[in-house]
């Protein structure tokens, strides 16, 4: 009897909790590791998964989603040219402590209508909300340089924003394709998926991705970094040999 009572109480207590049980995101990625080998000419990542609603209650409205793939943050200096004595030279510069080497965001709707500004800044959803940690105090200058950096990196394909480019099926399954250009920096990447409702993030998931050189390319790269002198000697010897052989071939003709 007492047991039954406890059970009932537990059920009653449990019911409201179950009603707000968190929505879960299940996610996977086409490749957790991208190997850069000699034929590497960029890659395309497929990020996909499902939204797991509590008790399978799929809402009628289309879910709001944002998928962010980002590479390692790097400290960079951005310089701007200006005309001095008739020629264009670098004059001003701004240092950014944490500029991601790669950043791509895909969303299910225009970013401005998807998230509020605070949420976008917290999770860095959208190129306008990247936390680049500039070291200058001059706000106007920082704003101008940030625009310049975003513009440069957008055109090189290292940073991108694809609003409304997440495919959603039955309000449950989602998928997005992220293009990785060949000039991508190596390192530890993450793919983060955000489920957004009324401008706020209500669930998130993250998957690591590794981009690294592999095979011969890796071997050459590591040799150049670790054994600079030996690498240089090998380069010189190879160049001398190639030139010598070419000379022999020519003389024979």
């Amino acid at each position, binding site marked *: 009897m007492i047991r039954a009572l406890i059970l009932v109480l537990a059920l009653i207590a449990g019911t409201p909790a179950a009603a707000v049980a968190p929505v879960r995101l299940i996610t996977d990625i086409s490749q957790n590791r991208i190997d850069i080998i000699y*034929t590497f000419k*960029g890659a395309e990542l497929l990020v996909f998964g499902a939204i797991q609603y509590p008790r399978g209650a799929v809402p009628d409205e289309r879910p709001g989603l944002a998928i962010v793939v980002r590479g390692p943050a790097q400290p960079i200096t951005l*310089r701007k040219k200006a005309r001095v004595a008739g*020629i*264009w030279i670098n004059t001003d510069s701004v240092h950014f402590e944490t500029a991601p080497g790669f950043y791509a965001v895909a969303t299910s709707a225009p970013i401005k209508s998807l998230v509020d500004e605070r949420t976008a800044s917290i999770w860095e959803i959208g190129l306008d909300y990247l936390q680049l940690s500039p070291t200058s105090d001059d706000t106007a200058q920082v704003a101008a340089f940030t625009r310049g950096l975003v513009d440069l990196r957008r055109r090189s394909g290292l940073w991108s924003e694809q609003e409304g480019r997440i495919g959603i099926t039955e309000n449950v399954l989602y998928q997005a394709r992220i293009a990785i250009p060949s000039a991508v920096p190596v390192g530890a990447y993450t793919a983060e998926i955000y489920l957004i409702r009324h401008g706020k993030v209500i669930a998130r998931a993250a998957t690591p991705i590794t981009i690294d050189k592999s095979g011969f390319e890796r071997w050459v790269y590591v040799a150049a970094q670790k054994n600079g002198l030996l*690498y240089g000697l090998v380069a010189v010897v190879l160049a001398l040999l190639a030139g010598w052989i*070419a*000379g022999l071939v020519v003389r024979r003709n």
Partner: protein
Amino acid sequence: MGSRTSGAAVPTPDPSRKREGSASRHRRRTGSPRPAGAAKPAAVTLYLPIAELSVNWLVIVGLGALVGFLSGMFGVGGGFLTTPLLIFYGIPPAVAVASSATQITGASVSGALAYWRRGGVDLKMGAVLVAGGFVGAGLGSVLFAWLQQLGQIDITINLVYVLLLGTVGGLMLRESVLTMRRTAKGAKPARLHAHNPLIAALPWKTRFYKSGIYISPLAPFLLGAIVGLLTVSLGVGGGFIMVPAMIYLLGMSTSSVLGTSLFQIIFVTAATTLLHSVDSHTVDIILAGLLLIGGVIGAQLGVRAAQRVSPVRLRLGLALILLGVAGRLAIGLALRPAELFSVFGPA
């Protein structure tokens, strides 16, 4: 060496956009390596491990061949064309400079050996030039790092190119036009020897038998140092400045000039490769190898083409190319660049 421009994200304002026909035709056919590359057939793309981007290897070999053709034809290394063209193609400047030096080492070997067999290398003069070259290269790498830190490396490289190519091209143009006029009048070509009073005043004179001169070793040492500085910072062999300087300033006999200059270039570019390998890890073996393959083929074609043209016309042609490049670079400095911003990446 400190930071290196992350060239992929940063198309450096092109120092070579509208150069002579063959170069620009070549480029139009191929386009830029920067886009993700989905449209490129896999067979021609090759990822460069140090430059960290994929290129169309046919383009690089073609570029090597073009420069090799010019070097075979005019007897110059052509580094002054390779480096700007590579940078334009999207290779990070530091990698372009370092790998170009490696390529020049290989490209100079067969020529140097040929002169060596003919006895066209003045070893004593060569040793002095090499010694100077090593000192210059050492100084150059320090200077290079410092300018990079300041963010003024590109502008300095361009200014020095304009100055050097303009001066050397102008001098050669004047000389070749004068010679052509004299030959047209039926007069004998003037002797190229010219003793410079400043150089004659330098102390510790010694005799360089093969070169047929009696001068202070300080003069060739200084010349070697200047060339070494240029090799490290511009990725050029420096033949285009060394050869005229040896003829016009030092007054060396022309029979030993080219061989001795190539001798110096091999050692100094090799040292430069080592310096860049140790300091900045910017030598891309694959890139240098591709350039070398093209260069060897192009040089043979160039040598054959050169045999049908008189030397004075060749000098005139080279002078015009040098002036053309200088002019293009000068215009590039004065025009508003397409890209006002540039990124200087992580160390």
